[in-house]
């Protein structure tokens, strides 16, 4: 017995020894990953050889840090845990280093100039020779200092800029602090929704409308496929009436735009990253992503680093097409509600000044257009203004359009409209000329409608047959659909 226990103890001891090195590196891995993170929006000096910086964002953090109370409060409302006191002092230190570098550079050019003028003289006195010697020593020291400070700034770049660029947008005064507010509710959920509750995957499959394999792969068949096209055509019709211009953009984007739009560009669960794009330099943090042509990023691409003629505001665009988004980590797959590819409609409005009345007017106008769209699509939906904690970091205000999913027994966001103030335009140098210089316009944008989500709710609300809203049925090319 003792012998067996002894042998078992030894075996355990060996197992532990084998396990330790296996586990410890894995436990510490997350911090390692963090250290490897590098911004693509702000290319630090020591990455510049790997990656070409197309722009460097406009940094307004002096203003942001001027009101620490407000910043602190807003971060708390967003439930983000950032040590802003430390960040502020890091920022100030960084600023000081930059100022020091500039002073050194000035000094360097002054001394160099002096030295050159002395060298040009052919008849130097002994005194001047002495001065030249002194200058050489001074220049050596200044250049050494410059080199040191440049390297220090590169290190700081990585640390400070990456953290500072992750600071969220300011909150709009209208954003509710704690609880989301239902702005309006059209119609009501019929009692019949409570009976006969089936998932849209079941219903879709049995009606031969849907072939769902996993979040990465699903097919819409028969009238569902025609419905998808027709809904997007209807969106074009509604937005055309609101004098919005249709755009068909690009599906790919470099990392810096993805990062500027508030997504983690290094996380393969935040956007799809292309592994073998031949234009991406080896080791560059500025990679290529697949986002889809009907997305915020695609509209930002059109305007990145552009100076807009101020007479043309407001700019009003929309797009219908694809949006690609991986299923976020730890999210439970839920049929068409969480698919990675969706046909959507996306709106994008640029207004001159976030402080003007126009900003609010245009926001409300867009909400009205989207409401008109939903009036044609369903009998019951509600419009909800999201609370601070539910916002994306880049949003200052978000209004969702929700429909009822009888199976999930909850409202599901089908689309949204968000206000971004000038957060995105500062990061991507989207500007316009003013009489006194340049300023950054405000952006209002949102995926106003996701077809797979709409389809899922419509299916669940009528499990026995596919009821196509009449306005859409008009546009469906043919088929034996049933209209309400």
């Amino acid at each position, binding site marked *: 017995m003792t012998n067996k226990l002894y042998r078992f103890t030894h075996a355990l001891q060996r197992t532990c020894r084998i396990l330790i090195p296996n586990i410890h590196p894995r436990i510490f891995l997350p911090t390692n990953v963090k250290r490897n993170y590098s911004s693509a929006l702000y290319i630090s000096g020591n990455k510049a050889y790997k990656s070409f910086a197309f722009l460097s964002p406009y940094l307004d953090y002096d203003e942001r840090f001027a009101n620490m109370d407000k910043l602190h409060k807003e971060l708390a409302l967003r439930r983000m845990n950032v040590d802003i006191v430390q960040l502020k002092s890091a920022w100030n230190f960084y600023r000081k280093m930059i100022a020091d570098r500039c002073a050194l550079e000035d000094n360097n050019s002054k001394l160099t100039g002096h030295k050159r003028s002395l060298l040009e003289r052919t008849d130097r006195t002994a005194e001047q020779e002495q001065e030249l010697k002194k200058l050489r020593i001074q220049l050596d020291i200044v250049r050494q200092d410059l080199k040191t400070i440049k390297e220090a700034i590169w290190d700081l770049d990585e640390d400070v800029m990456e953290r500072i660029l992750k600071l969220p947008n300011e909150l709009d005064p209208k954003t509710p602090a704690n609880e989301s507010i239902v702005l309006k509710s059209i119609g009501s959920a019929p009692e019949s929704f409570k009976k006969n509750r089936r998932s849209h995957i079941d219903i879709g499959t049995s009606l031969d409308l849907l072939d769902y394999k996993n979040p*990465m792969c699903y097919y819409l068949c028969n009238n569902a496929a025609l419905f998808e*096209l027709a809904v*997007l*055509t209807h969106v074009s019709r509604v937005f055309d009436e609101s004098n919005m*211009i249709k755009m068909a953009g690009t599906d790919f984007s470099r990392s810096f735009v993805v990062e500027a739009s508030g997504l983690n560009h290094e996380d393969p*669960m935040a956007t799809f990253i292309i592994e073998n794009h031949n234009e991406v330099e080896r080791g560059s943090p500025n990679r290529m992503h*697949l986002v889809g042509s009907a997305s915020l990023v695609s509209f930002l691409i059109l305007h*990145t680093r552009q100076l*807009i003629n101020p007479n043309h505001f407001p700019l009003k665009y929309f797009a219908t097409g*694809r949006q690609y988004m991986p299923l976020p980590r730890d999210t439970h797959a839920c049929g068409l509600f969480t698919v990675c590819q969706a046909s959507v409609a996306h709106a994008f409005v640029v207004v001159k000044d976030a402080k003007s009345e126009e900003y609010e007017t245009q926001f409300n106008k867009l909400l009205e257009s989207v409401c008109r769209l939903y009036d044609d699509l369903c009998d019951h939906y509600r419009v909800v203004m999201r609370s601070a904690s539910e916002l994306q970091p880049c949003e200052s205000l978000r209004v969702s359009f929700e429909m009822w999913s009888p199976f999930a027994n909850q409202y599901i966001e089908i689309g949204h409209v968000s206000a971004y103030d000038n957060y995105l335009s500062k990061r991507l140098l989207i500007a316009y000329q003013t009489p006194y210089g340049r300023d950054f316009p405000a952006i209002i944008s949102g995926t106003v409608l996701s077809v797979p989500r709409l389809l899922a709710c419509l299916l669940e609300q009528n499990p026995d047959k596919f009821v196509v809203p009449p306005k859409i049925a008009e546009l469906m090319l043919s088929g034996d659909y049933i209209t309400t």
Partner: protein
Amino acid sequence: MKFRFERYLKQFCRLRSSWLQTLPAETSEKNVTSQKLCLPQPDYDTEFLCNPKNRDAIFNNIKRRKNIGDIDKILELSDKPEKQKLFLEELSKLPNFTHPAVIDYGNVPKLLKQCGEKVKFDFEPKEFAELVTDLKAMRIQNLGPIAGQRSYIFLGDLAELEEALIQYTIRELMKHGFKLISVPDIIQTEVIERCGLITDDRTLVYNLDPCCGDDYSLSGTAEMSLARKLINTTFPYDKLPLKLAAVSRCYRAEASSALDERGIYRVHQFTKVEMFVCSEPCQSEKVFQDLQNIQGELFSSLGLHFQVMDMPPSDLGSSAYRKYDIEGWMPGRKQYGELSSCSNCTDYQSRRLNIKYKTKEGNTVYMHTLNGTACAIPRMLIALCETYQTKHHRITVPEKLVPLMKGKTLIKKQPIADMRIYKYKQKLNLSKT
């Protein structure tokens, strides 16, 4: 002794629990692709391929095609069961057989017919890119560093023309009995390989960062996604031919700096309407002809001048048995450009993806698959806009598309805001500290 045992047991338990903590990330990824795709084992026609009598025929076929595959190696491996894996790998590289009619074409396509006539202008026609950029209907400048080279953005009426073309094409295809399917644009790399796109040194396909638990790539055509849907299915004979159509985004990594391919002639991403047909083997030649007729009708009805080319063996992809290309006249470029192609893949894809049908007699047999482009947007727009340009450098909307363009008959200068590149670098040192 007992004390030591307890100590090690405790340590073991601690390590075990911390080991478990490192796991959740992996298990959640497994959840994502809980329904992993199970591809069937390809069923090559080994009876024919491994018969030494056929060696010369196969060898010559390989030589005429793109010279990929090694029949001697296959014959050598065929009786070595221990090298089964290598054997199957070699078999997968073999191209399809070639239609006897095209074998002697060498490297030159054969012109089958021409339709319509070259449009005549009493002015110098502009090229597409210049024409539509001047109308502010497209932007291609300065997009490279932001979205990749050869990126383009359609604005206003040109974006609407794209939508109208898709609607028109689908409407016409439905008249011919096609069923529309909405397909995924991201599919498993293996499906792409099974469809006959051999990924050799040249990278043709964009791969995604391998995070999704499976190896995914961007589909170059809806044909692959449609074939993916039919994996491991058997259809009754009276359901054939199965005619499917899909609108999808297509992604192609192939790069080219040829002057011929300037503007948006060869791009990395575009929208395309694709036709995909499964038929009984005895019907596939007829269906192949039908597909070509449908394409011809589509282009004729939009008033385009084009020619149909029968492609030589050296131009066939490994899955194709025969391929027709339709080349449309692009008056601004003053040359013909490929608008669409149509391939008969016989049982090449169905053997690799297990797509069968039940004959009248009750046997299960591999189907023939065929595919053809109904409308590839960028080139279609080039041909249309260049053909329909007016003296004042505007674009007339083709008659058939007017109702789908909300009655618009002429594309004029678009009300797009003026923009120019913003050269600016913030000087942090100048502001107050």
